[in-house]
């Protein structure tokens, strides 16, 4: 608990910004959902014929897993892309159903005799709605909004994966760094936020009930909503647009690399916004092309195979040339390489390696009954598992399991799986007592770290190019492994680890 408070206190400005983004996401999506769901619910309650299809569609939308929904939305024009807009669309989709259902239930729950009297007394159908159905349905509608808001606070944490920020940033960062304090820095405020929103709407419910209405409660609600909206807008606006937005994917090394680029640019006098923890290669690439971020560090082999769908190659210079040309066509400049090669490493427990005499990847066939587990990407990619088993003629027991990239090292150490493919520079290799099997057939292509920058941003801020060129060849695999371990194994703050590293190499 103390660690949590200390962490939040030492990241105060960033924490306030993330919290603000979270509140904006939830409030805005709930309001849009209310603007859609309430009129639609009223319509559906009056015409049961159309109620079924409307509720059906909303139900269907609700069953789509949130990450899958983000995935669907990213390639779409207008609503898609990366960042806040896409997140708002997805969150709204989830919030509509509870609001819609509650509205239908509320309106249909008004006693028939009450409506009959209202009509017979000469209320027009509009007056019946406004003076009778609406006030009587309001408690139900508000309870629907409460459900929507609480779901929204939870779902909004996932928005971080598509660069929309929010408290989910801490949860994903904490997962990547295997640091429960950082996870809690996202999870605990999110839970408190859900309670606060729920309480606010409970107060709103009191005001909606004519029997318990009080001016004091109304003023309190207005103040709370005003404070939430104002504070959120203030917090998420920051001090306007920064010079450059630095992105990263969602594992420790990427966060360290993002931090290196960010600090180098800050030392060059630029103002930097960090959008780390993007949920994968495709999302980071989309973000860069679409302008959601201005720069991030990619691995040459990943660009070649996963982005440009070209055959893998172990010739690192040729790979770099190829991707530089391809990126140039997209308006993106590939900067000079940082120096180390983060290729895949096939990992086993050190004790198994010495017991069975495992040295190379081909030796895995001596490991009878070994189960493999990989990150999602490694199983799918052409330069991943399929090519590997063909190149080495591997005969593993059963289908490999898919698991989160951040969990694979611990999964091997915990004997859930026996073999995995990790990053050669991961700090978790040593901390989990794993060893790397040699790639003696040179199956894995080059994965050199290359900073990518949007060409228009480079033109606008030439200082970015100057600063990043000075990083050429500055980071060795050993440097990287040490920084990764400092963050993963020793739970140090990535910002401080990078600061110490940059002070040490004194190139800048």
């Amino acid at each position, binding site marked *: 608990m103390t660690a949590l408070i200390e962490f939040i206190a030492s990241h105060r400005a960033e924490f306030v910004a993330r919290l603000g983004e979270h509140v904006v996401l939830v409030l805005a999506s709930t309001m849009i959902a209310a603007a859609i769901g309430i009129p639609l619910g009223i319509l559906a309650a009056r015409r049961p014929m159309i109620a079924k299809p409307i509720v059906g569609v909303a139900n269907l939308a609700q069953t789509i897993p949130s990450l899958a929904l983000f995935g669907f939305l990213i390639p779409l024009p207008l609503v898609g892309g990366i960042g806040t807009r896409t997140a708002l669309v997805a969150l709204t989709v989830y919030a509509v159903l509870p609001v819609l259902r509650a509205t239908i239930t509320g309106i249909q729950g008004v*006693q028939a*005799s*009450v409506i*009959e*009297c*209202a*009509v*017979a*007394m*000469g*209320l*027009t159908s509009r*007056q019946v709605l406004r*003076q*009778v159905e609406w*006030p*009587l349905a309001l408690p139900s509608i508000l309870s629907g909004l409460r459900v929507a808001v609480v779901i929204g606070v939870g779902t909004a944490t996932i928005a971080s994966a598509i660069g929309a920020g929010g408290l989910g940033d801490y949860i994903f960062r904490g997962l990547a760094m295997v640091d429960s304090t950082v996870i809690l820095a996202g999870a605990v405020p999110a839970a408190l936020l859900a309670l606060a929103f729920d309480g606010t709407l409970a107060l709103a419910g009191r005001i909606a009930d*004519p*029997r318990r209405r009080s001016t004091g409660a109304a003023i309190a609600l207005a103040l709370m909503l005003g404070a939430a909206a104002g504070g959120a807008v203030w917090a998420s606006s920051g001090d306007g647009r920064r010079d450059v937005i630095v992105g990263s994917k969602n594992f420790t090394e990427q966060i360290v690399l993002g931090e290196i680029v960010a600090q180098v640019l800050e030392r060059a006098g630029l103002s930097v916004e960090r959008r780390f923890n993007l949920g994968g290669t495709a999302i980071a690439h989309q973000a860069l092309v679409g302008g959601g971020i201005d720069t991030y560090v990619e691995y040459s082999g990943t660009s070649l195979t996963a982005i440009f769908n070209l055959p893998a190659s172990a010739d690192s210079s040729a790979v770099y040339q190829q991707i530089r040309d391809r990126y140039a066509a997209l308006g993106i400049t590939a900067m000079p390489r940082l120096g180390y090669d983060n290729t895949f490493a096939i990992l086993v427990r050190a004790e198994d390696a010495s017991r069975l005499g495992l040295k190379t990847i081909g030796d895995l066939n001596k490991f009878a009954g070994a189960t493999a587990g990989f990150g999602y990407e490694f199983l799918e990619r052409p330069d991943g598992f399929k090519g590997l088993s063909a190149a080495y003629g591997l005969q593993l027991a059963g289908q490999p399991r898919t698991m989160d990239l951040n969990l694979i090292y611990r999964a091997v150490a915990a004997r859930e799986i026996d073999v995995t493919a990790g990053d050669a520079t991961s700090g978790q290799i040593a901390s989990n007592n794993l060893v790397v099997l040699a790639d003696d057939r040179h199956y894995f292509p080059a994965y050199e770290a290359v900073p990518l920058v949007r060409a228009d941003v480079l033109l606008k801020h030439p200082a970015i190019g100057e600063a990043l060129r000075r990083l050429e060849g500055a980071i060795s695999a050993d440097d990287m492994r040490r920084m990764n371990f400092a963050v993963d194994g020793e739970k140090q703050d990535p910002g401080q680890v990078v600061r110490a590293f940059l002070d040490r190499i004194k190139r800048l």
Partner: protein
Amino acid sequence: MLSDVSLTVNSGEVLALVGRSGSGKTTLLRLINRLLEPDAGQIIIQGRPARDWDPIALRRATGYVIQDAGLFPHMTVAANVAVVPRLLAWPEDRVCARVDELLTMIGLAPQTYRDRWPDQLSGGERQRVGLARALAADPQLLLMDEPFGALDPITKSELHAEFKRLQAALRRTVILVTHDMAEAFTIADRVAVLCDGEICACDTPAAVRASTDPRVSALVASR
């Protein structure tokens, strides 16, 4: 449902529509304030065909009371009674005076009952408020659908007496649907008997009681 129904209600009289369940009493009542529209035939209200009336204006000029009163649960007694006067945009002080006048008239002290909520009232009190609400804008025509149907016998006879006292003073045209022959004979000036969608008797209580029509005498005997 209804066929060949021809019925004249005189100004200032109480006409009871009686008949078994499903005989069409409520349907006939709802045709009058255009909650339902007839397939054929016409209804003439105060010399003017109902279809020439604006339905909203017609309903505001017609009182309507149903079983269990149908009070608006989110409004106080006073607000319930004030609905139609407010729709007619009466000045607020006139609305307040009218509410107090009506509550006094139906025997509920305004100071005590004005700010109560419908669920704080007994069944009899709710029914009285329903009647006050129907009378609020002083309509000439009052439609009542089983208004005393959900009350215990003692409260019911109290309200019958109350109703007769009020009607003696106000002399409104009242059409009252009931399945209770005793009620019809007690408070109506004339009784119309509906048998399967037709009118099989329409006369004073004494004449209906003496009817030899087997359908009518069966109903009279059932009380």
